[in-house]
């Protein structure tokens, strides 16, 4: 089922969109790629600050809520830019990307990072409020921070590996 979906002609059709050709055959590709790297680095640099705060390693003088309020907009902004530039690159080689193990890992790890974030803000929200100013937050919060840090490093590694397989 998944196998069929990944090998559907649909992905080739995407590669043949005029936009895909325009990006793939011009300086648009390296331009989008460099913006993608800058946005991804900003995303990880910003979210790592929150993760290290959750771990009780850095920025412990600031309440979690303050850091979240002031840093998360940058994380989301960077995520949007990385997604748009990433899609721009994806459509130029959609059919090979969807069957590329590194790309599949990247999407999988991105999904896990998203689930971890949902878990932190939904299931752990009471804990998050209770430990807002605690320099060493509850173990479950620290674990969520560690998971986020590792998952985003994994997304970067898998993302960088995509180019070594195609």
């Amino acid at each position: 089922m998944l196998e069929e979906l990944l090998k559907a002609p649909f992905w080739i059709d995407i590669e043949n969109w005029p936009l895909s050709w325009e990006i793939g055959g011009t300086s648009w590709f390296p331009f989008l790629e460099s913006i993608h790297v800058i946005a991804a680095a900003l995303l990880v640099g910003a979210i790592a600050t929150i993760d290290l705060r959750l771990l009780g390693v850095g920025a412990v003088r600031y309440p979690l809520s303050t850091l979240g309020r002031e840093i998360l907009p940058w994380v989301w902004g960077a995520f949007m830019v990385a997604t748009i530039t990433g899609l721009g690159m994806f459509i130029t080689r959609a059919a090979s990307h969807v069957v590329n193990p590194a790309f599949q890992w990247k999407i999988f790890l991105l999904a896990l990072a998203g689930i971890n974030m949902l878990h932190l803000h939904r299931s752990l929200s009471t804990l998050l409020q209770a430990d807002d100013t605690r320099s060493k937050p509850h173990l479950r919060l620290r674990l969520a921070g560690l998971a986020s840090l590792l998952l985003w490093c994994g997304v970067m590694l898998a993302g960088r590996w995509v180019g070594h397989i195609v």
Partner: protein
Amino acid sequence: MDAVFLTLAEAIDGGALQAGALWALRSIPGFPPIIQTVHILGIAAIMGSVVMINLRMLGLALPSQQLFEMNTRLMPWLWWALLANAVSGGFFLFARPFRYLDNPVFLWKLAFLLPAIALSFLVYRISLRSEDIWSRTAARRITSKLAALLSLGLWIMTAMAGRWIAYAEYLYYPA
């Protein structure tokens, strides 16, 4: 100037450093993407430290944080990131010296990187003089914003130029 870099490339070419770098890149499974990821994580640390400080100076980010405190807490991350990126980048440069030292885009990268480091160090030293060093007069407030904008631009362009090293022909031999 180009001759200096070419001489350097020739000195590296065929030497022990090149042999070591090539061995690591070719023999250790997954080494090239792993070391490139270290390099990008270094860039992430630069974004999380000096770039965030620049955004704070511009009044765009982290309003509840004080510049003096940010500088003491975050700038060590920049120095370690620069070291990590010199080492991770060094593997590629020593393995293929001509690809970098005989490439105008790499020289552009250096032309952004070296002033970025110098300016960041200068702004850092000034920021540590006192808590209100950048806000005492209107002239200082303007200076701090201009310095932050320039620093931000230099760091972004360093990362940008770095990614374009592999695409030098797009710039110098357009279709």
